[in-house]
């Protein structure tokens, strides 16, 4: 299937990292709003009651402590009727939504733990969909898409997180060396040559792999949404991405064709 065809026939779930994305007149796009107080890794967040776009999704990607989840219980009672569902990473959210009797779609977005068919199918007993891991190969993704029981979310052209810490790592560093306070930095790792876009708020610090993963080659009938975290892209560039125009200089296919390993000793079973 050509990318243009895909754009016409498939649905995209786009994180609202810039407010003017909401002006995009593109069919098949649903917006995902990082929610103030409940999300990490975003510079722009939205109060939960101010998400008024039709068929919107709430992004709650914090790991929630007791105080956080108690607060969420209260705030979820205030959401508008336009809210279609919640994308989350803390499994406690499932119980909260159930206890509150809310009729919302639930998408599990902890993409490091959605690496095999069976685990995903177990999660799908409790949620409507899950985001397929960006830590696995294309072959593994197709195996999963072939065998899982419900349509999944698949990254399309997206920034993906490489680390999430509860610590305020940028603030700690800036405080130690009396540097100007910033919420975003690019960190360079000199040995591997990797850069990481790093964003901090009061709930923690997220390291993103600095290149966008480009999974636009993946097509399958069992995809519910193509997921896009366009952090760092402007509206025009996002539009080009949605149209399938090339952004290769800032993108990578990630682990699609790069297998990771974990044993150093050869021949160990």
């Amino acid at each position: 299937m050509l990318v243009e065809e895909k754009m016409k026939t498939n649905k995209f779930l786009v994180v609202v990292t810039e407010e003017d994305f909401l002006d995009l007149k593109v069919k098949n796009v649903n917006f995902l709003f990082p929610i103030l107080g409940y999300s990490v890794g975003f510079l722009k967040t939205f109060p939960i009651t101010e998400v008024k776009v039709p068929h919107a999704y709430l992004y709650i990607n914090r790991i929630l402590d007791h105080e956080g989840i108690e607060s969420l219980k209260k705030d979820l009672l205030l959401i508008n009727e336009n809210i279609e569902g919640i994308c989350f990473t803390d499994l406690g959210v499932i119980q909260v939504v159930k206890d509150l009797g809310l009729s919302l779609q639930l998408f599990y977005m902890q993409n490091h733990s959605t690496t095999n068919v069976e685990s995903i199918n177990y999660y799908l007993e409790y949620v409507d969909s899950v985001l397929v891991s960006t830590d696995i190969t294309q072959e593994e993704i197709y195996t999963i898409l072939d065998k899982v029981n419900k349509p999944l979310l698949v990254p399309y052209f997206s920034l993906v997180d490489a680390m999430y810490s509860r610590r305020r790592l940028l603030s700690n560093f800036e405080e130690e060396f009396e540097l100007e306070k910033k919420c975003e930095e690019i960190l360079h790792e000199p040995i591997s040559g990797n850069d990481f876009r790093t964003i901090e708020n009061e709930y923690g610090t997220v390291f993103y792999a600095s290149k966008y993963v480009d999974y636009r080659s993946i097509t399958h009938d069992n995809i519910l949404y193509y997921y896009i975290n366009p952090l760092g892209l402007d509206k025009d560039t996002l539009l080009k991405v949605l149209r399938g125009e090339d952004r290769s200089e800032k993108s990578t296919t990630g682990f699609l064709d790069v297998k990771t390993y974990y044993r150093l000793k050869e021949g160990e079973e």
Partner: protein
Amino acid sequence: MERLELLAPAGDLERLKFSFLYGADAVYCAGKKYGLRANADNFTMEEMEEGVKFAHSLGKKVYITVNILFHEEETNGLDDYLQALDKIGVDAIIASDILVIKRAKELGLSLEVHVSTQASILNKEAALFYKNLGVTRVVLAREASLEDIKEIKRATGLEIECFVHGAMCTSFSGRCVLSNYCTRRDSNRGGCAQICRWMFSMDGVEFPFSMTPKDLNLIQYINDMIEAGVNSFKVEGRMRGIYYIATVILVYRRVIDLVLRKKLRESDIEYYLNILNRVANRESTAQFIDKLPGKNEQYFLGREEVSNQDFLGLVLSYDEEKSLATIEERNYFKVGDMVQFFGPNIETFNYKVEEIFDENNEKIEVANHPKMIIKLKVNTKLHPYDMMRIKVFDKPKHL
């Protein structure tokens, strides 16, 4: 009060035995497959069976980590592995992938399933999710506060396991793949290259960026944690040696017992902190239990990892008639040195080395070959597996 457990790391059979001898109620270790320390020695099935038999002979327990996040290719063989663990009498597995939890339940195994700290549990609803899958214990995220612990315990009734000592991830455990990006080694399948201990740079900033956390040390919070409902106090360090294991486990054993007998004094904590700090190669702090860690809980410039050479010898035997201890040397010592003996069945005591005899009962002045056998005349009764270390701190008399 519910059962309290001191849970020790065991990188191999020797360390498993030392953990138990020095006061652990249970150990956790990994087999050759499916554990997050893929490059440690780990246990063969036969070694695990021997470890389980040894533990059960003492009325103690063995937990096996099956805590990787599985890729498709690893799922084959999992059932056989779990059934084999069950057959040899492993008491519980520690899992993070929902696949392992479900499989263990579907197979009708008698071993218990504990949820790993990799699941990042900080609230009761997340804990209930796993309780409904049939797990009996949750290992909370190291980011848990006392309030989080209390609420989870109160609402779920699950057994609560918390790390109290040892190294920490910078990230929520399980939420980091920096290793995958920088080295292609998959952190969630046991290949973590500890990128969070590397140095980074930032444009326009002269200082290197570092995010390495100091180690965790909750010795001062044992009483609070017991009151909050913690059942199992877990020490990190499957790669650590027997001296570290023996020292740390014995300190926590003594402190837990003193707390339970309501006899722990402030000054005791100071003494035990000194012992723990001395044996560690990094600084340690309480981290998340009472606050959000700031800059003082991590390293920036000038991090030192000190190699500890306090461990002088391991007692192999003791001849009561001659008051003669046979000792395997581990680090240099000489006549005139002030040392200390400690062990699970003795009160720690100071000792001045007046004479050293070699294996042939010849007098020598120094013990300077690792693993050489020497003999010392010691009037206080010693036991095999007691240890001798440099005397740095005096034990308070009442302890």
